[in-house]
C-alpha cells in the first residue's frame, strides 16, 4: 500500500516536470499532439521541423557533439553524458546553462528537409543522446519502423496518435527516469533537483530497454490492435 502511494506520488511529480519536445510539420498534428500531451499533464513545446528542434536543443551549428559534457544538474539528459566516455570539455552549452530540460522528443518521420530519422540520429549523436526519442508516422512500414528502432528510437507510433499510445509510453519513460538505486527513489523526493539528479544518472541505462522496445513497438504497429470500436 505504502509502495503504491509513493509510486503514484512519484509518477505525479515526474509528470509535472516532464517536458516533451514535439516535432511535426503538420499544423493539425502539432495541435493534436499538444492537446494529447497537455491532457496527460506534460509540458510541451512544439516545433515545426527538425532544424527548429535542433535549434531549440542548441545543436544547430554542430558545436555540440557527444564530446561536450556538462555537470549541470538542471539538464536531465545532457549531464548523463559525463558518465559516458569522451567528455572532456568543461563548458556547458547555452541551453544547459539556462536550465533547458527535455525529457522526451516526439517526432514525425516524414518531414520536408530533415526527416524524423535524421533528427533521431542527430540527437543520438549529441549530448542529448539519452533523451528518449519516439518516432511517429502515418504509414505502417516495418522496415522504416525497424530502422528507427535500430537508430535508437524508444518507440514508434502510428498516426493518428491517441491517448492510449501516450499511456503506453508512460511506464517506459518513468522506468528510464527511476533506474537509480532504490534508496533514492523511496526517500522523499519532493524537490525538482533531486528528481533531476536521478534523471541524470539513470538515463544512460535506458538503452538496455531497447530489446523490450522493439517488441512493444512492433506489436503496437499492428493497426488492428489499435483500432477500437466506436463508442456509443
Amino acid at each position, binding site marked *: 500500500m505504502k509502495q503504491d502511494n509513493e509510486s503514484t506520488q512519484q509518477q505525479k511529480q515526474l509528470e509535472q516536470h516532464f517536458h516533451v519536445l514535439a516535432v511535426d510539420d503538420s*499544423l*493539425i498534428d502539432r495541435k493534436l499532439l499538444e492537446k494529447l500531451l497537455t491532457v496527460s499533464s506534460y509540458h510541451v513545446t512544439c516545433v515545426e521541423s527538425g532544424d527548429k528542434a535542433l535549434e531549440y536543443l542548441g545543436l544547430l551549428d554542430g558545436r555540440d557533439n557527444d564530446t561536450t559534457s556538462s555537470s549541470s544538474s538542471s539538464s536531465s539528459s545532457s549531464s548523463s553524458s559525463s558518465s559516458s566516455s569522451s567528455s572532456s570539455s568543461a563548458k556547458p552549452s547555452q541551453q544547459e546553462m539556462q536550465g533547458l530540460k527535455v525529457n522526451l522528443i516526439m517526432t514525425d518521420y516524414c518531414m520536408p528537409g530533415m526527416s524524423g530519422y535524421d533528427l533521431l540520429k542527430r540527437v543520438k549523436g549529441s549530448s542529448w543522446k539519452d533523451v528518449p526519442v519516439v518516432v511517429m508516422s502515418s504509414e505502417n512500414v516495418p522496415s522504416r519502423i525497424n530502422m528507427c528502432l535500430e537508430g535508437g528510437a524508444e518507440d514508434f507510433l502510428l498516426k493518428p496518435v*491517441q491517448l492510449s499510445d501516450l499511456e503506453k509510453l508512460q511506464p517506459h519513460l518513468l522506468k528510464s527516469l527511476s533506474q537509480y538505486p532504490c534508496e533514492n527513489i523511496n526517500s522523499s523526493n519532493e524537490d525538482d533537483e533531486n528528481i533531476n539528479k536521478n534523471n541524470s544518472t539513470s538515463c544512460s541505462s535506458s538503452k538496455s530497454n531497447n530489446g523490450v522496445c522493439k517488441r512493444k513497438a512492433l506489436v503496437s504497429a499492428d493497426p488492428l490492435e489499435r483500432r477500437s470500436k466506436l463508442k456509443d
Partner: protein
Amino acid sequence: MERNPLQRQVAYMRRSLFDQGYLDEQFVQLEDLQDDANPNFVEEIVTLFYTDSARLIHNIEQALESRPLDFIRLDDYMHQFKGSSSSIGAKKVKNECTQFREHCSARSAEGCVRTFQQVKQEHTILRRKLETYFQLARQAGLAN
C-alpha cells in the same frame, strides 16, 4: 438526464455522421480530448483543418495545371492532406486521398484530375455537415 429536443437532434446528427461514414473513431478521440478547460477543442481543430487544407487544395490545383504533371509533388501534397484528414477523423475525405495517391503511383493524369474532384467534393460536404453540427450543438448547449 432528460435530453431536450435539440440535444436529441444533435445526438442523432452525430450518430448519422458516423453511420454514413463521414467520420471515424478518430473524431471520438478528439471529443475525448475536449474538456471544460478547452470546451471548443473539436471545433477549433476542425476549423484549423479547413484553413490548412484550403492551402493544400490551392497548391494541388496549381500543380494539376502544369504539364507534365509532377506526380511526386502531387503525392506529397496529398500525403499531407490525407494525414490531416486522418487526424480529425474525416473518413471519406481520407479515402478519396488514398484513391488520388494510387493514381499518382500509376502516373495517371486523368485519374488524378478525376479523383481530386471527389476529394474536394467530400471535403466540402463534410465541412457543411460539421458546420451545421457545431451550430446545432451550440444551440442545444445554450438551450439548457
